[in-house]
């Protein structure tokens, strides 16, 4: 069997049933294929119209098809008004070429960027081996919340933003589940998401937008662009009469899974959105950290990245 490009969902299901692997933008898969970390036959999803595009429900909430390009999400005016934390994240990740080709689904289900995983000299939990050479070797970009054998942070920026919204994922066979549940608790070192083989992600559903939501996204990097974040964070706040009424805060680059920082959110809700409250809330993010020998710096960086997005979200409006 070779690469196929079905035009219907049933066609996709059929091709997957005979051992195919979904391919969306191919921006990750093409490299994994070249490195021998992925094998075809591939089932191109681009021809299935039902999988792409943004839809709106009567209650004002959005459904984003899995093959919607990231650039389209970033540029969608209505999405920007309703879910500014999502569009800000989409606009800031990777590069224009990547955003144009890469899709929502591919972003959520991509492989992590551990340099040991992608180097053919090494084998690890993720590539069929039994250990984690990064844990005993170089892991300066690794996790600061040690959840299990693998130390590679989850790569998906959009997953982080969606977790911050409590969004849900629609799958073909398993129905609907929380986006957070695509990833579990990070203790499985063999994979970056928990969807079984042959499963298709259809779309992501967002909750009803919060009127007046303000948002900010930030990644800590050395260079100005096109660099994987050491830490990234996104915050969305609804502030009325100077008090935080609703909050969603999430972080990436620090754990095997995208993290929703509920402890930070709780420390904000009902409180005045002033500098002291924001800083104290951000400081709570550090408490869940269990850094590795080379990632101690991420503890403070997580706290301060969260502080930065909280302050910038609160400043708006």
């Amino acid at each position, binding site marked *: 069997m*070779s*690469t196929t*490009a079905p035009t219907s969902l049933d066609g996709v299901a059929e091709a997957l049933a005979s051992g195919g692997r979904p*391919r969306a*933008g*191919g*921006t*990750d*898969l*093409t*490299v994994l*294929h*070249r490195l021998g970390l992925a094998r*075809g036959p*591939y089932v*191109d999803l*681009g021809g299935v119209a039902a999988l792409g595009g943004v839809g709106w429900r009567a209650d004002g909430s959005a459904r984003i098809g899995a093959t919607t390009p990231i650039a389209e999400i970033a540029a969608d005016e209505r999405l920007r008004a309703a879910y500014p934390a999502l569009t800000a994240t989409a606009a800031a990740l*990777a*590069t*224009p*070429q*990547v955003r*144009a*080709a890469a899709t929502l689904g591919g972003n959520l289900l991509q492989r992590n*960027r551990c*340099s*040991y995983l*992608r*180097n053919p*000299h*090494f084998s690890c939990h993720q590539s069929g081996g039994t250990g984690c*050479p990064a844990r*005993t*070797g*170089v892991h*300066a970009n690794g996790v600061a919340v040690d959840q299990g054998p693998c130390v590679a942070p989850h790569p998906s920026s959009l997953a982080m933003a969606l977790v911050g919204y409590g969004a849900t994922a629609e799958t073909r066979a398993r129905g609907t589940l929380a986006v957070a549940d695509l990833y579990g608790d990070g203790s499985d070192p063999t994979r970056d998401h928990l969807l079984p083989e042959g499963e298709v992600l259809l779309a992501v559903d967002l909750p009803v937008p919060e009127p007046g939501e303000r948002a900010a996204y*930030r990644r*800590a*990097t*050395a*260079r*100005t*662009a*096109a*660099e*994987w974040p*050491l830490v990234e964070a996104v915050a969305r706040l609804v502030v009325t009469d100077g008090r935080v009424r609703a909050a969603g805060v999430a972080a990436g680059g620090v754990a095997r899974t995208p993290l929703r920082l509920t402890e930070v959110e709780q420390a904000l809700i009902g409180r005045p959105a002033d500098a002291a409250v924001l800083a104290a809330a951000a400081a709570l993010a550090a408490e869940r950290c269990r850094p590795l020998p080379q990632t101690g*710096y991420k503890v*403070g*960086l997580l706290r*301060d*990245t969260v*502080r*930065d997005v909280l302050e910038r979200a609160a400043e708006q409006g």
Partner: protein
Amino acid sequence: MKLTVNGAVTGVDADPDEPAVRTLRDGLGLTGTKLVCGTGVCGACTVQVDGVPRASCITPTAALADREITTVEGLGGEHPVQRAFAAHDAMQCGYCTPGFVVEAAAFVDGWRVEHGDTEPSREQIAAAMAGHLCRCGAYQGIYAAIAAACAGRHDEPAEPARVDAAAKVTGAARYTTDVRLPGQLEGVIIRSPHAHARVDAIEANGVPLVDLRPADGVVRYAGQPVAAVAAADHAAATAAAARVEVSYTPLAAVTEFGSALAEGAPLVYDTEESRKSALSSAEGANLPGRWQGNLHTTSGLPLPGGGTAERRIERARRRGDQRLVSAVYTTAVQVHSALEPHASVARFDDAGHLHLYISTQRVSAVADAAAERWKLPREQVHVVAEHVGGGFGAKANLTADAVAAVELARLTGSPVRVVLDRAEELTDGGSRPGSRTELSLLADERGRLAALTVDAQGDGGASTGSSVGLMARLMYGTAPRRIRDSDVLTNLPPGAPFRAPNGPQLAWALEQAVDEMAHRLGEDPISLRRRWDGNPKRRALYETAAALPLWTGRPATGSAAGRFRRGVGVAAGNWLYMASPKTQVELTVERGTVVARSATQDLGTGLRTVIANVVREELGLPADRVRVEIGSSDHVPGPPSIGSRSTTSVGPAAHDAAVRLRTALREGAGTAGREAPVAALLDGADGLRVTGRRARDRGGYLLPFSVADAAIGRGMSGAVHVTEVEVDTLLGSVRVTRVWGGLAIGRVYAQGPARNQAEGAIIQGVGYALFEQRRADPATGVLLTDNLEDYHLPGIGDTPEMEIHFHPDGWEYVTGGGVGLGEVSAVGVAASVGNAVYNATGWRPLDLPIRPDRLLEGINR
């Protein structure tokens, strides 16, 4: 499968899962699209898919079906962006240019539709070009070109800033990686997976194979070449390589600089014999020295006053003298990573001549070396490097790619191409050794330099040859000093000469120490340098620098408050002036055009343009009547593109040739021709040929002899960099916002390319200061930074606003009046960033690169 490319429907036999870049380049021969990183980071492979730029290395070929594909070839050459890139000199080597141009064309077209003919901001341009990297650092020109094209200023053709601009913006420029000869095979190098091992046997299993093992059969780093094989195409060659069985006896390895000198550490070179033939990161021969385990101490000429310097510093240390500045400074290994990897294509013709296409900075020397190695008469070796996609020092020899290609060509009887992939390039393509430098600087009670000691250890993996301390002999007067240079050997890939070898490592230590001394003495760092530095040309630069608003408006050190802190730092650079006295340029009149030839090459420095400019100016000819043909070892002798020698050597030889040609033309034309413009005389002079030479400098050179045609000239070239940074004290990043670069190099032969190169040096220095760091897995010695996602090159958004100032005086005794700038412009940049960070934060960074984690730890300590 059927593809619509550049408006035409073509059938191609392609694997739908292969990256599209392979299909376009290998399948369709559209070699304007370049393959560099293969991971979507650098943008060299960018093509438009239905008008939208896409990185074709991470696009499966299947995704091209039923789409309109536009490659750089399809833009035609008259797109305003192409004209703008040519006019604003938005390129050096040109290897990144097609990718930039294809992206920028879409951006500019879209911008003009949406915003009319207006200029976008720098930030907008940086955001649009975030998916592109230019290792040469031509970003300033790229900004200018895109802004001007958006504003509608390039709807008409304009004069290009360099003569090969048109070839570079259209993808027509042919690099070695683009060479495809009939019947050509693809070669692949088999490399050691072990950091240290004896190679016991190589079982070819029927695959045509050449042995590349080192003479003693021991490999000393992971990635060292062991053998090479060839097959019909890349996939077949990779498969063939997998069939070869190499048996190794692994040996204990040392993979960390910090543990190489420990008791009982495995030895990288353990026999007298192996030490004699140790790999070297230095240009030319191995430096002699003494071995103690993995420590190799270079026996340099002892300096008078060494003992005095040590004693003074020791006494000052004992009395706790505030005027003693003493610290340990370290730098990371920096990888050259030219965007065109090392590449060679070899062919033997029926007469037994070797034709070697190679990405090299030394066509002549490579031809000499090839003749010697394969025992061929020199005139039967033809080395070609038409366009070279960057080199920075690492492409100066008969490297493994060349050896493999030639030997495989001889073995198989077919032409063979060997192109390193990015992982190979970043592993074995050369690097600037890291360093650990203990430096002490003592001032006397009147603030004069009283003593200087330098103990520098090079971190060049399995190579010796580091001499960081060398330049410390040649700066800041004649106060007593003791300099010691050594190498600490490890089982990691070896270094290679890199633009101003050893210069930035020393400057990182010395220029920060001088800055610290100024701080201790309560003196302006520029005025301290003015007092200490005897170089008259650099003193002129200090005058100018001291008056810059950038400098006079700098904050008091440590006075800045708040999250974002601004600081300004200064550093000086010092470099040798070298020339190639045997350089010649030949001019021939061919069908009304003057053709200039020399066995030299243009790796982005603009040498073609230098020659063309000199000849045109002297003869008063329009652009289309001078053509430059370089990049072939068959021409009259020309200089290598190393040691900042090429321009200062070729310029005067071209001038001499032009003068001779005019004389010959006028003589040929008799009395009637005496007053005629040269252009009018060319038509009747077909075949007329003259050769120009570079006359000796007035007063000669520093040494009466020269080795390999490298004459060390009299006088040192100088640079001063004044650099502004903005430090984010919350998240730890440093942005270099403005840089003033003053260069004392005399005459500038080609303004645009010279400025461009000086700017590129700043950008590489910014990378060195903030981002670039080679890292290896300690257990295996395998590099983790063997890709451009993990090895961080500076991007367009990291580009400061730059101003380059050329100080014209001081080189009147040099033939032609100007010296090279490639190296001196690269020496002090990182140190000026370090001093600026200190000025901004009051914390002095001692270790490069200044990563966010280091900065945060430093300022929060």
